[in-house]
């Protein structure tokens, strides 16, 4: 009777006891009720797990109490299929340890885990018997990133000039849960169509080296907050500031490089030099009365003849060894020092074209040259077949060539063989076969039936997953030969692709999309409070996380190392920010952290710590939410309506109270408490890092209190304590990585019926859960290899 009273109070939704309450252990009374409940429960589920669920879940979530609006019918434990959605929710709550809630009776974790495992087993068996593969459109437009990579791999164009870069030419895609390749959100509209047409024309002209192409004006601006007192990576030693740009020069011609200086003319002379692929090709002295413009700080313009192809352009100052660098002259504020700085470099051209040249893209396109007029059409067919097979990612049919050849013929008549190829290529780049991944349902497939996707479609799924790009010849050949069905061949292809440089796309996308790393670009830490935050630091943050994620992928490390690694990637600027000595120079290198360092793993990285902060202060709530959502896949529900969330404003916290006090007051509201008891302790543990990720021992004069208590009563302190807690839940973390990878691989949001596939991925990945093994397991998974026929 006493136990029932406790339970009904707990069910009312008010948290009556927190951490360390006696309710955290099962009471003898509660346990004694178990057999009774079990008699009504599932034949399929072993009696003990069923009893656990009935006792600890159904006691509140029943048709009478309807606690939290969630009702479980214990009778459905007999056949979980029809209630799979509800039961998956139960599994999730148990696995994320968010249920039973604080204050309610709670058995030993092992008892709950056993119940969860039994439930998962039943759900997995159900899914195997009646697979649900979700609704994935047959037609999936390439995202802007995929288009860009496809162009790179199809045409050997990896550094399109800014004016014809894909980012400029095509509209940005929309994001869902961080990912930009969600089929449903890849919209098509007439204005996008116009942009595709435009992109096809411009890119095809660059690819073939069209001598009649119009002059391009590519302006490269340097951020005013980017200090120019150090050598820029990729530029020669002995230089400072400026910029390096990798850019395609489409034809053999003269190109102009116009330099604009930032305000702050120099009294002394400074030499600006232009380098191409590291070789100095021009230089000019400005200021100091030495220049040919009589000492005015007039910006130089260099005109240089160049051969076609990609080149690394460098514009920088020759270092004055006697000049004091900016950092010693002033505390690092967000402005440039007294030395002149480059504001922008405008690369324009081509002028005085001498010929199409011999660029990598021309070599990729022109796989033959016609020896005679009679040879032209056959050679064109060969060129276009080769390109179309890669662009359309399947064997080429005669119908494809019939679409393309008229454009060759028209262009040939107008201005010769090359123009003909360019026109046909332009046509190819707007073909639905290029712009869309289209999968076919085999004729005669009954509605709703699951079937294996065609081998060439699987090849595309694989290459867009691992490379964000089109398959290469080897992968496509294996698919066309029917060898991709062989699990060993498939696995070998996955390993090969992961080892390829193109797999950097996977690491970058995972880092920038799953972890919301690209939010760092929009962060504007307050200038007064964080004077040493600048563009160099912003870039360093991003680079560190990208290199780190890529290292876990490339070195076949377990994904748990994303949380625990004892190394990171630093340059001097970042090391200074972190207080790590003896790292010199602007280039990034792997640094093994000393034992007990606070920096190992994602949570110690400036990027993550900054994107989860406001511009003037840290936010334990944002940090807690970020961890729950992105590392444990257990996001708190949105705040209840009409409660203005204190923390959406970036205004200064109430000065009279510490952050911790203000938040304790917020948690006193029961409507807020149920979620904040989960978020806040995680955020508190990270409080030793300020809003730009610097270590601190005090905040506003008060010492930092980095202790917290989880809803289940576990107390912990600081980053080491938090990591320990996360490691306790590492299965949940691995499942989260698997879930995000599967979502990204499929290009759709996951639903409850995908949970069995996520569990299968975790199982198949083996005990070490390496990044690569998770990727391979996603590729083997049922939703990746199969599709369900639609009903229409």
């Amino acid at each position, binding site marked *: 009777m006493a136990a029932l009273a406790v339970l009904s109070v707990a069910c009312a939704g008010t948290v009556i006891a927190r951490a360390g309450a006696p309710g955290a252990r099962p009471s003898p009374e509660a346990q004694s009720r178990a057999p009774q409940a079990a008699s009504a429960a599932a034949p399929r589920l072993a009696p003990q797990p069923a009893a656990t669920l009935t006792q600890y879940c159904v006691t509140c979530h029943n048709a009478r109490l309807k606690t939290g609006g969630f009702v479980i019918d214990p009778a459905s434990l007999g056949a979980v299929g029809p209630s799979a959605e509800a039961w998956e929710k139960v599994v999730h709550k148990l696995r994320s340890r968010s249920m039973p809630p604080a204050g309610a009776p709670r058995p030993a974790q092992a008892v709950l885990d056993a119940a969860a495992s039994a439930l998962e087993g039943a759900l997995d068996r159900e899914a195997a018997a009646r697979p649900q593969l979700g609704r994935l459109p047959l037609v999936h437009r390439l995202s802007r990133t995929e288009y860009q990579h496809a162009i790179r791999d199809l045409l050997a164009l990896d550094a399109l000039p800014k004016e014809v870069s894909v980012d400029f030419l095509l509209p940005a895609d929309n994001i869902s849960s961080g990912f930009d390749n969600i089929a449903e959100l890849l919209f098509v509209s007439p204005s996008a169509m116009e942009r595709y047409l435009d992109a096809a024309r411009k890119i095809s002209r660059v690819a073939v080296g069209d001598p009649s192409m119009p002059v391009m004006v590519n302006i490269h601006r340097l951020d005013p907050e980017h200090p120019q007192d150090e050598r820029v990576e990729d530029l020669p030693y002995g230089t400072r500031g400026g910029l390096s740009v990798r850019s395609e020069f489409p034809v053999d011609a003269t190109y102009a490089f116009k330099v604009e200086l930032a305000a702050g003319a120099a009294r002394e002379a400074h030499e600006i030099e232009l380098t191409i692929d590291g070789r100095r090709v021009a230089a000019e002295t400005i200021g100091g009365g030495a220049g040919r413009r009589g000492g005015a700080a007039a910006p130089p313009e260099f005109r240089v003849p160049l051969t076609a192809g990609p080149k690394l352009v460098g514009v920088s100052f020759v270092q004055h060894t006697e000049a004091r660098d900016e950092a010693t002259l002033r505390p690092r504020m967000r402005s440039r020092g007294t030395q002149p700085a480059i504001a922008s470099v405008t690369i324009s051209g081509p002028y005085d074209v001498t010929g199409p040249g011999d660029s990598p893209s021309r070599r990729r396109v022109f796989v033959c040259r016609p020896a005679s007029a009679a040879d032209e059409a056959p050679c064109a067919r060969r060129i276009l077949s080769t390109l179309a097979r890669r662009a359309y990612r399947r064997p080429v049919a005669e119908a494809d060539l019939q679409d393309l050849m008229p454009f060759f013929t028209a262009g040939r008549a107008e201005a010769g063989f090359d123009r003909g190829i360019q026109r046909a290529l332009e046509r190819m780049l707007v073909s639905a076969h290029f712009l869309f991944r289209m999968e*076919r349902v085999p004729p005669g497939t009954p509605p709703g039936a699951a079937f294996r996707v065609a081998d060439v479609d699987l090849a595309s799924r694989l290459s867009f997953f691992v490379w964000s790009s089109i398959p290469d010849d080897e992968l496509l050949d294996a698919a066309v030969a029917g060898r991709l069905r062989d699990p060993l061949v498939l696995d070998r292809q996955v390993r090969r692709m992961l080892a390829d440089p193109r797999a950097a796309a996977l690491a970058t996308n995972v880092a920038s999309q799953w972890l919301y790393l690209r939010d760092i670009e929009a962060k504007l830490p307050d200038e007064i409070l964080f004077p040493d935050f600048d563009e160099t630091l912003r870039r360093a943050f991003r680079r560190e996380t990208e290199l780190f994620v890529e290292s876990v992928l490339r070195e076949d490390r377990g994904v748990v190392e994303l949380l625990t690694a004892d190394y990171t990637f630093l340059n001097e600027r970042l090391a200074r920010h972190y207080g790590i000595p003896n790292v010199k120079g602007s280039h990034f290198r792997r640094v093994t952290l000393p034992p007990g360092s606070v920096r190992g793993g994602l949570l110690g990285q400036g990027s993550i710590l900054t994107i989860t902060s406001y511009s003037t202060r840290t936010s334990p709530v944002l940090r807690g939410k970020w961890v729950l959502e992105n590392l444990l896949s257990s996001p708190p529900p949105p705040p209840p309506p009409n409660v203005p969330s204190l923390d959406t404003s970036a205004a200064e916290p109430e000065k009279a109270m510490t952050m911790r006090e203000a938040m304790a007051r917020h948690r006193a509201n029961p409507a807020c408490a149920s979620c904040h008891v989960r978020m806040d302790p995680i955020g508190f543990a990270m409080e030793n890092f300020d809003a730009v990720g610097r270590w601190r021992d005090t905040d506003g004069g008060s010492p930092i209190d980095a202790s917290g208590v989880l809803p289940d009563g576990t107390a912990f302190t600081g980053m080491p304590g938090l990591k320990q807690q996360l490691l306790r839940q590492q299965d949940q973390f691995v499942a989260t990585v698997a879930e995000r990878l599967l979502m990204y691989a499929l290009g759709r949001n996951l639903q409850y019926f995908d949970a069995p596939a996520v569990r299968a991925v975790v199982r198949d990945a083996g005990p070490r859960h390496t990044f690569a093994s998770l990727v391979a397991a996603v590729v083997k998974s049922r939703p990746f290899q199969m599709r369900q026929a*639609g009903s229409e």
Partner: protein
Amino acid sequence: MFITKRALPRRTFLRGMGATLALPLLDAMVPALTAQARPTPRFGFIYIANGVIQNQWTPATTGAGFELTPILQPFAAVRDRINVLSGLSHLQADTFGDGTGDHPRSSAVWLTGVHAYDRSRPGVEVKLATTVDQIIARRVGQTSRVPSIELSVDYPLQSACDSGDCFYVNTVSWRNETTPNPTETHPRLVFDRLFGDGGSAATREARAKAEGSILDSLGAELRRVTGTLGPGDTAKLGEYLESVREVERRIQHSESQPVEIELPERPTDIPDSFEAHTRLMFDLQALAFRADVTRVFSLIMSRELSSRTFASIGVPEQHHAVSHHRNDPELIMKKAKIDILQAQLCAYFLERLQAAPDGDGTLLDHSLILYGGGMGDGNLHRHSDLPTLMAGGLGGAFKTGRHLSYPQDTPMANLLLTILDKAGTPLDRLGDSTQPLSL
């Protein structure tokens, strides 16, 4: 007016000159239009985000001769050509238990009156409604070169939104219930869309011909492919085919109606200030109206959740952050400064239209410009008492120069219904409309 390839000196010069320089230039570029029997109607929808400081927006008195409040003061020069409407609400943007996406729902509801469901919840699919600008464009835009253009001064949001559904804040224009129109931010792309990317008339003609044949061939390809895929969702392919046809139509129009205006130089870059960028977008749009290149546009002057800062007017904080002022007088003052700046820029555009002769009146006389947003009180995320200003008489369809106050929570969709009616595209209902608004 236009940023040219002679970048710095001219830009500096122009910034100093401000708005006054632009008009004579504009007039010089457009040949005198012959008097028309019936003026061509033009429509613009200008969105401002994160609500306004309502007690500095809403005039105290109604009717003609209403008093201009601090935020409306910039409209003084065109006050007899505008109507301020208060009391209108878009309650379909309320949460309905559907998560935190108050900002995404604000932009989604503005021209639809429809609740935007949180798609990040499992099983919810993209579904909104055709927006008013598109309904109108389908009629009045079909005979112009570009049926409608969608602009935004802010770049689309590429990171986390309240609810995960960023696409709702990135546009206020939906082609149909599943397809939002992307927006153009870069002035050069806007220029290219409206006027072609330079070159001689002969080059443009050759281009149109080449693109025409590509579209022709592509249409045939799509018709061949559609239907061979088997049962399943091939909607995107249908949208692609529809887009091909639409662009084909545009090219045919542009061939039959060459733009006989002297074009300014193509802008090369995004101006470095918000003010200059917005003015340039308006300059291009005014030119497009004059040359009758397009008759319908939407422009997002500020995007919901915008984190833009306004150091030039003493607001170094982010727009969205300032809008949650929590009744802090300093933050209220700062949000009002942003509201005033936006009003000044809108007024700049209206004055341009007012100064441009068009038939028997001015461009503004024959236009309808709706200026406002889907959030009233940005601090509390309320969708009541929305900032709403209409400018232009649409060729006598609307009487102007008044402040009209409606009963609290009159559906904003009622106003949209009235606009559709006057535009010659009447509907019985739109979103949660109850009846046309009398004004």
